[in-house]
């Protein structure tokens, strides 16, 4: 199938004015402005296939938002090629944005002073959504997102979680084929996060909407995405499945054991001596070289065991290792 988004060697450089402090400084800024360049994105390439739900990860300032702003047609890149929905986003903005949706966790795309329902109704003429499709979608989404209790509340009076739900609904009413979610769960509590994740998954699965998700909450990614792209300092470090990422870069698994008796020496051949505390021991092992089943068998053969627990390092740690050790850099 043909890709819905094709990005090749995308570059974006910002020119930023160096502000000098004080009155004389601001005069100098006016007369002889000094600039420096920030290379936010330096040669990023990737494709999105229809129906993809891809996690786009990276630390602050990695260039995630810049990529999304180029892909939503807000920014004109400094170089490279972008085709999305068969168009060049910034060049054919009005036609292009008709088929995309965008949600920004840190700001609303709704009208601040209007009640939620008026805001949503305003989207009908803007996107020229046929009336009966609009009503059908509004009904479905407001049920899924439970918008009912606050449809008549002005957007400015909503809680963060309510606002996010309203924004998600607004981004999807016109049935876009491509949706960008920039930190959709930022600042939300566990329950609200889960509701949003379920909704995202539902829309992706049931409607086949292609989605690019940036988030700092890696449990979003673990729950939703099979494929992730990792960006750092404007370059793509990794683009592949989450499974492969774990297989390649996950650090050691741990095995926590509660013994039935006191053992002075609890070490196993071929493994680092465990961390000990009373009747407890924590082993660390590379599961790629030594599957957990073998470790457990070796333990059972030597010791009397009450309880044991195998623990994988959280995705966060794997990703942190990638950034810190530049594991993916050539």
């Amino acid at each position, binding site marked *: 199938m043909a890709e819905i988004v094709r990005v090749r060697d995308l570059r974006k450089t*910002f*020119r930023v*004015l160096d502000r000098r402090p004080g009155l004389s400084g601001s005069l100098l800024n006016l007369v002889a402005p000094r600039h420096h360049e920030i290379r936010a994105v330096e040669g990023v390439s990737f494709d999105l296939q229809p129906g993809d739900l891809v996690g786009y990860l990276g630390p*602050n*300032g990695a260039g*995630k*938002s810049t990529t999304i*702003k180029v892909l*939503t*047609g*807000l*920014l*004109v890149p400094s170089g490279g090629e972008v085709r999305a929905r068969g168009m060049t986003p*910034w060049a054919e*903005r*009005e*036609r292009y*944005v*008709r088929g995309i949706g*965008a949600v*920004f966790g*840190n*700001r*609303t*795309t709704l*009208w601040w*002073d*209007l009640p939620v329902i*008026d805001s949503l109704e*305003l989207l009908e*003429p*803007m*996107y*020229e959504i046929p009336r009966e499709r609009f009503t059908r979608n509004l009904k479905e989404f407001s049920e899924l997102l439970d918008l009912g209790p606050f449809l008549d509340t002005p957007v400015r009076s909503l809680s963060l979680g309510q606002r996010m739900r309203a924004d998600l609904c607004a981004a999807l009413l016109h049935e876009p084929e491509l949706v960008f979610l920039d930190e959709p769960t930022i600042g939300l509590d566990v329950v609200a996060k889960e509701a949003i994740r379920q909704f995202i998954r539902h829309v992706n699965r049931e409607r086949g909407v292609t989605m690019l998700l940036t988030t700092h909450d890696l449990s979003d990614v673990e729950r939703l995405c099979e494929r992730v792209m990792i960006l750092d300092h404007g370059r793509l470090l990794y683009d592949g499945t989450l499974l492969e990422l774990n297989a390649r870069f996950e650090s050691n698994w741990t095995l926590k054991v509660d013994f039935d008796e006191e053992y002075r020496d609890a070490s196993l051949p071929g493994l680092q001596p465990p961390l000990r505390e009373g009747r407890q021991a924590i082993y660390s092992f590379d599961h790629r070289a030594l599957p957990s089943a073998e470790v457990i068998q070796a333990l059972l053969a030597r010791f009397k065991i009450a309880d044991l627990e195998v623990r994988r390092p959280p995705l966060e740690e794997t990703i942190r290792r990638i950034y810190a050790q530049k594991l993916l850099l050539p």
Partner: protein
Amino acid sequence: MARSLRLYFRLLSIQLRSQMTFRISFWIDMLTTGLLNVSYFASTYLVLERFGNIAGWTIAELAFIYGMAEISFGLMDMIFSGFDPDWFSNFVRQGALDQLLLRPVNLFAQLFGSRFLLRRLGRILQGALVLAYAFANLPVAWTAPKLAYLPLVIISQIVAMGALFMMGSTLIIWTIQPIEAVNIITYGGVEMMSYPASIYSTWLRGLFTYLVPLVFLNYYPALFFLDRPDPLGFPVFAPFLAPAAAGVMLWLALRFWHFGLTHYQSTGT
């Protein structure tokens, strides 16, 4: 185009409705801006009463030129509220421009529809009062060509001042911060238009003739309306350049705007 207009009026009706919900603050705002501007003209009037004229212009003639500029500026400030550089810089900084760019709707329709300050009616009303005083006291024959040209001049003034607002806002797309220098051209230009151009020094007149051609929008048309000779020696058609000057300014402003937008850097991460 028709769709953009429909959406503009829809956004406008939302604006007006929300402004009317705060009725008391609306009337107070309108009254105070009106009174403030009346007091400006009143102080000029008191000075003039002692001297009789400025550079050969009577009080009624001055009232005419001042009233025109006030009405036009008030109307422009109301219609082009969304392009007011001071407001626009906040708008951009809060990322609201991003929100408009995400909609499949003409950006101008959305920006015009983002703000419409009804309370500018205070200033417009005040200008109308001053203009009414001028009409009552001018010994001028209001021929059919003059009456036909008058609304055209007002529209040209609105368009020209609006173009200045637009250019000022385009600069903000780059700098994000408001620039005081922009206000010198916009507000300074309007101030300049409120008095006969012949009273200004040559360099200032040159600036507003050749660089920002505002003299063709109020001063020269006024010479025609008031049957006054041209002390500056421009061609006889100079009073009728107002629509052309406004058209050129608007065209340049639009080009500049589109150019500016391709250099938009957005805000935040």
